[in-house]
């Protein structure tokens, strides 16, 4: 009996947004009379925190703190069209639409402020705390609260904006496959370290070190949530998950969380996450989609680590103890 150790590496990239484009998302932004901002979308928050991120993007663009922004989404009677939350497109597509809408609203806001302060709108800037200042003369300022009141009740201006983001659809050329699948790509490299019990085929993932390049971490704590959860799911895909354990045989598919296997809280690898940021040319504040790609590199990294440990290649997912044991027995001289 032996517990054998190995490590493996994998490096990947991943496209942001719906493959081949053609996937529009719209956003509307308007201010309330007291200078709070509503973002209206029909995008769906799946738990990844889209509402929070859209609020931060709008707040940054308008120049107010995030808690002054409310996001109203996922109602087709109020929200303008969004293609949906999938393909790592939420932050990128909706974020761009929100920026465009927020910029338009900001412009009206600055125009109203300019009238109040009797300066040119182009001479104004926001301080991020809810005030509009004259560049170079910050003592001359007005609060966004007062600007919104003025816009509503005195000047009859709507501080609002419309945003639409569309990557034009690419059609693959039939014979060569020339096409534009995506405008930006996230990157990752994972090193996994495993122990394999060579009598039972059981694998323990000891550590995973994940390096992710995601364009821009708009909210680092929320990025961390995605990346840690994704890394767990990647290991889960590598070693545990399938609805058809004897594929292509259809029998014995799991029907509950006892039979459908995923690592439990007692199976966690020591997980290290390092984030690099190379802003994308067309992402909101440079962001790319981190949510999907973060679950990919662990799978081959673990597979390669298993080989490094016991010298057998399991080229079929998931890499179950049974597959490892069969391979070890096939390899061993009888």
């Amino acid at each position, binding site marked *: 009996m032996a517990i054998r150790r190995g*490590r493996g*590496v994998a*490096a990947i*990239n991943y*496209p942001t947004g719906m*493959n081949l484009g053609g996937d529009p998302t719209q956003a509307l932004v308007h201010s309330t009379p007291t200078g709070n901002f509503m973002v209206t979308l*029909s*995008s*769906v928050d*799946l738990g990844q925190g889209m*509402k929070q991120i859209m609020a*931060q993007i709008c707040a*940054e663009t308008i120049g107010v703190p995030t808690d002054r922004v409310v996001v109203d989404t*996922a*109602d*087709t009677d109020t929200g303008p069209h969004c*293609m*949906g939350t*999938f393909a790592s497109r939420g932050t990128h597509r909706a974020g761009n639409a929100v920026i465009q809408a927020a910029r338009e609203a900001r412009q009206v806001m600055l125009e109203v402020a300019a009238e109040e302060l009797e300066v040119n709108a182009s001479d104004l800037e926001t301080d991020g705390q809810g005030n509009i200042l004259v560049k170079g003369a910050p003592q001359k300022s007005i609060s966004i609260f007062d600007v919104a009141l003025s816009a509503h009740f005195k000047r009859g201006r709507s501080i609002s904006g419309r945003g639409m983001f569309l990557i034009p659809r690419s059609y*693959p050329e039939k014979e*060569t*496959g020339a096409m*534009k*699948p995506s405008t930006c*790509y996230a990157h990752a490299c*994972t090193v996994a370290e495993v122990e394999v019990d060579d009598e039972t085929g059981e694998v323990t993932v000891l550590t995973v070190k994940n390096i992710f390049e995601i364009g821009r971490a708009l*909210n*680092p704590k*929320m990025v*961390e949530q995605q990346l*840690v959860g*994704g890394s767990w*799911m990647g290991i889960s*895909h590598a070693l545990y*998950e*399938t*609805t058809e354990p004897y*594929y*292509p045989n*259809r029998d014995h598919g*799991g*029907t*509950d*969380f006892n*039979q459908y296997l995923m690592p439990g809280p007692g199976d966690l690898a020591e997980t*290290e996450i390092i984030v690099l940021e*190379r*802003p*994308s040319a067309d992402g909101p504040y440079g962001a790319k989609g981190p949510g*999907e*790609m973060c679950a*990919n590199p662990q*799978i*081959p*990294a673990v*597979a*390669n680590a298993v*080989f490094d440990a016991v010298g057998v290649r399991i*080229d*079929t997912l998931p890499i179950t103890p049974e597959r490892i044991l069969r391979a070890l027995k096939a390899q061993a001289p009888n």
Partner: protein
Amino acid sequence: MELRKNYFADMRKDDLHEIGQPRPRSDSPGHVTGKTAFFADRNFPGMLHLKMVRSPHHHARIRSIDTSEAEKHPGVVKVLTARDVPHNVYTILILIQIGPEDETVLADGKVRWKGEAVVAVLAETERAAQEAAAKVKVDYEVLPAVFDMEEALKPGAPLVNEYHGQNYYLYDSGECRKVRFGDVEAGFAGADCVLEQSYQSSPIEHAPTETTGCVVAPEGNDRFTCYTNTQAMFFTLDNASIILQMPGNKLHFVGGTVGGGFGGKVDVIVEPIAILGAKLTGRPVSFIYSREEEMQISSPRAAEKVVIKDGVMKDGRIVARKVTGYTDAGAYSRHSPYGAQKGAGHYPGPYTIPNVWIDTYCVYTNRTPSSAMRGFGVTIGDFALEVQMDKLARLIGMDPLEFRFINAYRDGDMKAHRQPTEGAALIECMQEASRAANWPVAEKYMAMSSYAKGA
């Protein structure tokens, strides 16, 4: 988590107020107090429960359906069959002109996978719906089924889906999506070593803790509000509009926080039939997948087979790569033709290779239709590519990490699908991995950059 700000610092503004800040999530207080409203937290008086009668066979002709006993069962309000569905044959990607329509909302004449929806029962209680469902009599003539993609592609295999006419999706490029770049055969001929390997996966479930479902309430003005956990509001609304032949302005979709999606809630399955039930009964209707349905009926990530043939030089350069990918769509398309095509755009991975040949097939078999999942079209391909990379490195006696540096794409490199590389960062990720994992590589690799060569 650590942010390594030393990379690409010249490309980034780090003086923003809200972006880059770890603000607390505005939705979390609702989550920890149990106040967040998920779709199923809405309860309406008089709500009916929908249960589906499903096919026990992988492939069968339906000779007859007798719902008379079920309709008489106490508590049953309505029993729906294919003839109740206005536009019963549909496909979701028709909205972006990817046809043909190939799937039935309720089976009509045939079932093509075990678990396919045949009859919908609406009753006052879940129990009554279950009991009535057991009284629906369906007379099946069992047909030969095919489960293996290679078998399905052979001449004479049972035909899974008549709307396609063959067991693969027909792209405008033919039986597969193709990418042709350089001369792959010449590349193999000139290579020091050639390695061809095959990789396989089996279906994977999203397994969100909240199962797929919706609650539909008539608004009393000929409009219907559908509370749903779909990942795509208008995509679902527009498909429901087509299936029900109802103008979109009669439909109001309300989503919100979804209890996990991972791609599993982009199919349009529960909403149309629940809206139809609400329309025909005038009552609110709840259709929520059981956990068993979520695990075995909802679309999984497709099983894939990936065959990779590489030509590599002893100095570490990959000179030719041929990839043949097969996506097991199950019985219907759903999003699989799109996923298989996405694979074609992803191969040969983040590496610059002068000669590339890619074919990706979307194959039909008699199993649960597969669809999108986190990493759609790429996850399994990356497993295959990166295990192959490991094998190639060992084949030529090179460190697997150094081998990747040699081939990593950089800004300006032409990809196989003829887009120049922009914004690459693979090299920097690997440099950081080398440090973090204490996996040393030669200094020349640590000195590399993703910026354009020579820049």
